[in-house]
């Protein structure tokens, strides 16, 4: 469907200086990096809204097998929110950290924290964590000393389940 731009008087108008324009059909940015540019508010690159997308992602596990349900993502600009819940972990004995990979986008140069709840573990995990440049999620507990990641050996029962949601910044 061709793009039609109509101003508030109902007449076709040039693409600059529009007053309350109405768009009929989709507005498509066919050039890489194109988007809605809020140049009056700040620097151009950091003020361009150039992406929106939602879908599913494919969680992976760093040890053994598991079952991931309802993995979803929504990307608005460079911010990505992912969520899922996981159960049926086959590894409940190794001493390595539980790490869920397969994020839909690699994280940028900032670290991000998210919410979590779970059952059947003796680790009081308080947050999900994505490091910079990563496509995996780790889980950490509050600690009186060093940082305490959730370990496979702390999954106490075959009914262990973990729900999480994290919002992080992608690379673009």
């Amino acid at each position: 469907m061709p793009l039609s731009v109509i101003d508030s008087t109902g007449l076709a108008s040039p693409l600059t200086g529009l007053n309350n324009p109405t768009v009929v059909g989709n507005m498509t940015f066919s050039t890489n990096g194109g988007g809605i540019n809020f140049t009056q508010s700040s620097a151009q690159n950091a003020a361009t809204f150039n992406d929106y997308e939602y879908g599913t992602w494919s969680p992976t596990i760093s040890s053994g097998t598991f079952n991931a349900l309802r993995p979803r993502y929504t990307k608005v600009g460079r911010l990505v929110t992912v969520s899922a819940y996981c159960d049926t972990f086959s590894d409940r004995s190794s001493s390595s950290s539980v790490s869920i990979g397969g994020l839909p986008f690699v994280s940028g140069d900032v670290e991000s924290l998210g919410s979590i709840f779970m059952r059947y573990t003796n680790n009081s995990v308080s947050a999900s964590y994505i490091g910079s440049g990563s496509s995996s999620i780790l889980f950490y507990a509050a600690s009186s000393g060093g940082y305490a990641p959730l370990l496979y050996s702390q999954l106490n029962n075959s009914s262990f389940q973990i729900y999480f949601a994290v919002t992080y910044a992608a690379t673009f």
Partner: protein
Amino acid sequence: MTLASTTIIDKVEVLEDGTIQVRQATVITDNGVEIARNFNRWVRHPGDAGASTDPAPVPAISSAVWTTPVIAAYQAAVAAQKQPGQ
């Protein structure tokens, strides 16, 4: 009404360190007219063996991009990554 479903790789993004972001689209058509498009995404880091079994064109792109130096640089970057508090 003739519904059909097609799965395609409709976007592949290669990042600076060689990481590949893949978007797979499931396109639903009615008599050849697209009526819905859903996305599933995943990421392949340099050296990830799983890329070789991904749908085209991911294997070809990963083979072209993931030279030995690219893989080595990525692995070095991962090794240098710090955990919280470090």
